[in-house]
């Protein structure tokens, strides 16, 4: 496959998914070629391959004009290192630091080499994702001395917030430097929910892995479970029944509608329109209850399994869900008319928390927040896996990149998801809902790529010869988007932070792992 001038010898691994291996020294040249073409770096992670008779490896997933390219480079067993990628793709910065914390793989000449996921629970010379890491080693209780970048000068002061926040949200630390009410700088310190997710995957059987993948970030359960299963099915060269694939898309769209309804309610709440919160959460609750009646779980947990799906829908269920989709659509339209017409809400939403398109492109803003800043990427539209290749998904984009734009994208995506749900229900193919996986006899690998409600979820999987998981890396779009929240707040007033934060609604658990 060509990217720029050069043929990088990539092979097809799946639909729109490419696989390549190269010397680590070539990664900067490849990155530049991807960047010049308008592509992005999506994910970066490492692995310990010494048990396979090799050293370590660094892996990267790039979004290119031809789809997603998964590139791996073998590294030495002693002092593994690869060239810094963050000077080309700034979103690599935190992923490189996390890769060092977990594996001791160094990004040579990186500007920022501070720790990221490691706080005080394990020592600087212990690397949990190395296979020889002793899991029984007693945890350290070092204090987390983290060198924040200080802003100095007359009248500047700091507001430290978190890790435990005032509302019902996940834990993380925000360090605001302000003058008066205006934010001069925001620096995030995340990693508080790091709970050893990737290590826990090691040695799991494939079915348990699907349940676990769905719990990387619970609000994106279906996106993760599907991406994981896609990876496992690619690795084992297993066929999934057509009906199962359509049901997976149904689950993913149900999940998207539920999350967008909740966010639209909270966005109203954050500008003191509690009416909006109550109305949207009424709709969300109705939606979740019907989901539980039809599929046995309000958030569809464990409905997607390797080889297919665990839950099916009958004709009366199809009719009921289609009817509910119509009702929700009408209700959302009436609420949107109120949001559109509400002077205070519009005043608070418009021109707040702006991320301009050029900045979004430079730093790799992705998913729904990216689409609100004119980053027109949606895997369902451009690189559709089945069944999206038969559904002609319409992508929602905005140019202004403010809170209002992110709300508008959510409204448009609710309507589009409801259309897709009706379409999926109408054209749902007959057949089995699950097929057994092909047996595993050698080491094999696969990658799944799903456009979740927040953005693209990528899961890379390597299965050992014993049929158990050897290495799983789940990637959340929040990795790329958190740094843009730091910039989107600049020049805004502190009281607008909750609103701006909610308009991104990023996952802590998904990036802390």
């Amino acid at each position: 496959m060509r990217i720029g001038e050069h043929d990088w010898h990539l092979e097809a691994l799946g639909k729109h998914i490419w696989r390549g291996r190269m010397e680590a020294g070539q990664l900067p040249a490849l990155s530049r070629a991807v960047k010049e073409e308008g592509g992005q770096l999506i994910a970066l992670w490492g692995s310990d391959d010494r048990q396979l008779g090799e050293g370590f490896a660094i892996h990267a997933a790039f979004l290119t004009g031809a789809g997603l390219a998964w590139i791996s480079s073998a590294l030495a067993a002693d002092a593994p290192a690869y060239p810094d990628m963050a000077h080309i793709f700034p979103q690599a910065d935190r992923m490189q630091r996390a890769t060092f914390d977990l594996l001791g793989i160094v990004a040579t000449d990186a500007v920022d080499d501070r720790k990221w996921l490691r706080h005080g629970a394990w020592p600087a010379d212990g690397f949990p994702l190395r296979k020889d890491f002793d899991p029984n080693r007693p945890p350290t209780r070092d204090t987390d001395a983290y060198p924040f970048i200080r802003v100095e000068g007359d009248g500047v002061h700091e507001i430290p917030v978190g890790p435990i926040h005032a509302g019902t949200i996940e834990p993380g630390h925000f360090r605001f430097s302000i003058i008066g009410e205006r934010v001069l700088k925001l620096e995030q310190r995340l990693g508080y929910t790091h709970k050893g997710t990737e290590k826990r995957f090691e040695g799991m059987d494939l079915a348990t892995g699907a349940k676990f993948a769905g719990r990387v970030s619970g609000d994106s359960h279906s996106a993760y479970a599907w991406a994981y299963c896609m990876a496992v099915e690619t690795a084992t060269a297993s066929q999934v029944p057509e009906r199962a694939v359509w049901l997976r898309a149904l689950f993913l769209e149900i999940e998207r509608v539920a999350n967008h309804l909740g966010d639209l309610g909270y966005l109203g709440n954050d500008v003191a329109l509690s009416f909006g919160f109550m109305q949207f959460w009424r709709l969300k609750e109705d939606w979740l209850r019907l989901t539980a009646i039809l599929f046995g779980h309000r958030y569809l947990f464990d409905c997607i399994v390797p080889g297919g799906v665990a839950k099916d829908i009958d004709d009366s269920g199809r009719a009921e869900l289609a009817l509910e989709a119509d009702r929700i659509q009408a209700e959302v339209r009436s609420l949107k008319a109120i949001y559109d017409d509400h002077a205070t809400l519009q005043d608070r939403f418009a021109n707040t928390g702006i991320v301009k398109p050029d900045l979004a492109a430079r730093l790799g803003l992705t998913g729904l927040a990216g689409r609100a800043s004119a980053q027109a990427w949606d895997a369902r539209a451009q690189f559709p896996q089945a069944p999206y290749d038969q559904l002609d998904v319409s992508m929602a984009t905005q140019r202004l990149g403010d809170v209002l734009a992110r709300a508008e994208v959510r409204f448009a995506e609710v309507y589009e998801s409801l259309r897709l749900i009706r379409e999926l229900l109408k054209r749902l193919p007959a057949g089995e809902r699950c097929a057994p996986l092909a047996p595993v006899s050698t080491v094999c690998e696969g990658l799944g790529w799903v456009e979740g409600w927040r953005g693209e979820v990528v899961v890379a999987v390597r299965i050992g010869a014993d049929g158990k998981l050897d290495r799983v890396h789940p990637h959340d779009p929040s990795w790329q988007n958190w740094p843009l929240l730091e910039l989107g707040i600049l020049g805004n007033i502190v009281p607008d932070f909750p609103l701006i934060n909610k308009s991104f609604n990023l996952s802590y658990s998904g990036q802390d792992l």
Partner: protein
Amino acid sequence: MATHLILQKIFKTGFVSEPAPAANLALRTREQELHADILKVYGQAVAIRHVDAGSCNGCELEIHAINGPHYNIEGMGVKFVASPRHADLLLVTGPVSRNLEVALTRTYDATPEPKWVVAMGDCGCTGGMFGESYASCGKVSNVIPVDVEVPGCPPTPIALLQGILAAVSKGGKNIAP
């Protein structure tokens, strides 16, 4: 005009709130001394501080849900507050990550006595799929004392409310409500 549309929508929607569920006392794991005396003072009003100690954010979805109109929690005397210093009860989710262990302990210490702790979700009750590891302390009661455990992944809003009410209800462990 928005006000007109809002009023129209409110009248058209009507009341959706449902009656409160009964406390599920079987979820109680320990009985504090002076429990009955405390309740004389509190009645059933309870101020809750939620602490995500490392959850996958699934449990948080249901904490948001009980704040919605179907559940009318303030009508039951249940209110979420912004600081542990204002709280009677800590609602803790997740396996406790080692990176959050200190913050959770400090939050517990900052909550005035008498106080209750409700551990929410399979992870909070047992460590769940994450278990104990180099990065996870496992269940909440490994780190702070717990009064009520509400299992589920995530527990439904009704189960969660039954657990919260169990913490602040009269009657001993395993006594039917």
